[in-house]
């Protein structure tokens, strides 16, 4: 079967499996969401019939229908993009996610790009000055950064940069008092300003490992004979470092970069909560606290799908980036 088709089917199957898993979770967990929800609604003083209708609309569960009908309905509405009704916000999950996703994507993508830009430049410089004091200091700093959880750094940044110095805002996506139209200069400026600390906390901790990876890759490429030959031809150092060393050193990092987007998306759950940054991570946490299962399931599905699609893109494009890999069975990049 065609390789691309097979990969694509695998993506579909993975997402379907996750959807099925969430479906099962919402029904099978002992003392799970349904009981919780029912108790919650009854406590709020709704009549039993009203409770049943509410539960149905929230969770898309018709308790009297057979399980396969319920499953079919659930999947059908998923395919149509209907993720159900959020209990805590009273809006549809799709609406909540739609409003929050761009903010989270911005955080995750900006983090990934910055991490790798920093790693590639810094790691390459370290490799060139291998063994120098600069290299030693940078390696130590990288290890320190890599071993610090991003939420700890986030706290430190809030305390020091946010409160002590007051340089950057410590919460919200934009200034709540700002009354500027979306995509105006003031709006974008405020958005960027507010995202500095969340992004910084993930970049500074995430870059550590990647810097070391780039350093290692570059050192190994620098030791290759073709670099010696290029040098022997009298090519400039600059030319050698860019066209010969950098390209070959960056290649192996390509996959981990695409996978990182998923990883940083997951990381936003905590970061956004810390910074009260209303992205999907923040809503996931809110959903967890208020036992808003439909919201949690919806966001869970979105996060998983993003990761799966990231891997898929990495797989499809790796052959283009690295000519040694030909699309085929051995080209799976994870």
């Amino acid at each position, binding site marked *: 079967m065609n390789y691309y088709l097979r990969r694509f089917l695998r993506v579909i199957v993975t997402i379907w499996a996750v959807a099925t898993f969430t479906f099962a979770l919402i029904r099978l967990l002992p003392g799970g969401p349904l009981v919780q929800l029912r108790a919650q609604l009854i406590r709020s003083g709704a009549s039993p019939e009203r409770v049943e209708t509410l539960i149905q609309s929230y969770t898309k569960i018709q308790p009297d229908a057979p399980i396969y009908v319920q499953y079919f309905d659930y999947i059908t509405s998923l395919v149509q993009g209907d993720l159900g009704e959020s209990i805590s916000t009273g809006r549809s999950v799709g609406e909540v996610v739609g409003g929050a996703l761009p903010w989270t994507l911005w955080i995750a993508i900006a983090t990934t790009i910055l991490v790798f830009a920093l790693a590639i430049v810094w790691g390459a410089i370290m490799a060139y000055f291998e063994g120098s004091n600069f290299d030693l200091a940078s390696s130590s700093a990288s290890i320190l950064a890599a071993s610090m959880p991003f939420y700890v750094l986030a706290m430190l940044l809030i305390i020091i940069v946010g409160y002590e110095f007051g340089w950057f805002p410590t919460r919200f996506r934009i200034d709540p008092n700002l009354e500027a139209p979306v995509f105006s200069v003031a709006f974008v400026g405020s958005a960027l300003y507010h995202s500095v600390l969340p992004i910084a906390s993930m970049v500074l901790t995430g870059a550590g490992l990647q810097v070391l990876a780039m350093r290692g890759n570059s050192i190994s490429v620098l030791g290759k004979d*073709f670099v010696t030959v290029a040098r022997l*031809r009298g090519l400039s150092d600059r030319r050698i470092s860019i066209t010969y060393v950098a390209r070959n050193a960056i290649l192996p990092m390509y996959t981990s970069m695409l996978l990182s987007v998923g990883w940083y998306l997951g990381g936003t759950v905590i970061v956004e909560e810390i910074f009260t940054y209303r992205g999907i991570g923040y809503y996931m946490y809110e959903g967890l606290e208020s036992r808003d299962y439909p919201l949690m399931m919806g966001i869970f599905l979105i996060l998983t799908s993003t990761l799966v699609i990231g891997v898929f893109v990495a797989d499809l494009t790796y052959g283009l980036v690295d000519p040694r890999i030909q699309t085929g069975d051995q080209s799976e990049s994870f």
Partner: protein
Amino acid sequence: MSDDGTPVLSLEDVEVHFEDKPGLLEFGDETEVVRAVDGVSIDVMENDVVTLVGESGCGKTTLGKTAIGLQRPTGGSVKYRGHDIWDIRDGNSDADITWRDVRTSLQIIHQDPGSSLNPNRRIQTILAEPLKQVRPDLGRTEKRERILSLLERVGMNPAPDFADRYPHQLSGGEQQRVALSRALLMNPDVILADEAISAVDVSLRVEMMDLMLELQAEFDTSFIFISHDLSNARYFTAHADGQIGVMYLGELAEIGPAEEIVNSPKHPYTNVLRWATPDLSLQQTGEIPMRKIDVPDPVDPPSGCRFHTRCPEAREACQTEHPPTYSDDRHHVACFRENEDHDYWESPKLTD
């Protein structure tokens, strides 16, 4: 190019010492000096072949790299057409040769062909690079034609097919041919072939050596051929009427024409190498002509003649005095046994 008797490349009393500084966590602050190459003088003429043989760690690769200007000698000089290349590089030379000329004139073929080609470039692009540098006047199609004809010349047919491949799609021998072509396209005067055929399949080695010899005449270049296999060294050197230099612990023990080195070695160490090469030893491998197998530490080489700890002929004189080089036409040996009047003959034999 005229053959006026000046060597293309001449090494004079070359010395390469590596300092091994102690690491941050190692105690003591003594700097260890590894004497990789010590007092070696070799001349490489036009269309010459100089082969360096010796066991691992004897400094033959370091010497080769020093010869083509990849490694700066800590003592002595490396002269290209009579001018010190490091003076040229530092701008202290009044020669009309630039560092760029030196760089293009001295090329290399590595042992591992897989590592010597950039994995992300097609053969065409790899070979176009040196052409771009040496002949910037050539157009695209002309370049392509030259590359294709060279690929055909080195036996890679059909050439257009090979030109569009990536290095990983070639066999080791084919990769080595590309590396050879790349070196030749620079139009060099000297190519260092550092164990260039060791990674090639045994059955293809002779073919590869023949190819190198044929191309040597066509491209008017010299080879410094490094090998640990005396029989390959003999084949390659004898066909080009070159010299084999035998290295031991950073020093040149003996250098001379191939057949003389192989058939009538004057240095006891050369005899050991000959014994260790099955194709050459006439009798069944007999008693090893050496007292010890272990190579001494190059950080602290033995006094006097460096081979005296292992030499079967060693006498007490060898422990104290460093043997000078005795020359006989083209054959040079660093061993007291060449001098019939030396104290060596009077001193008692060393026994362990």
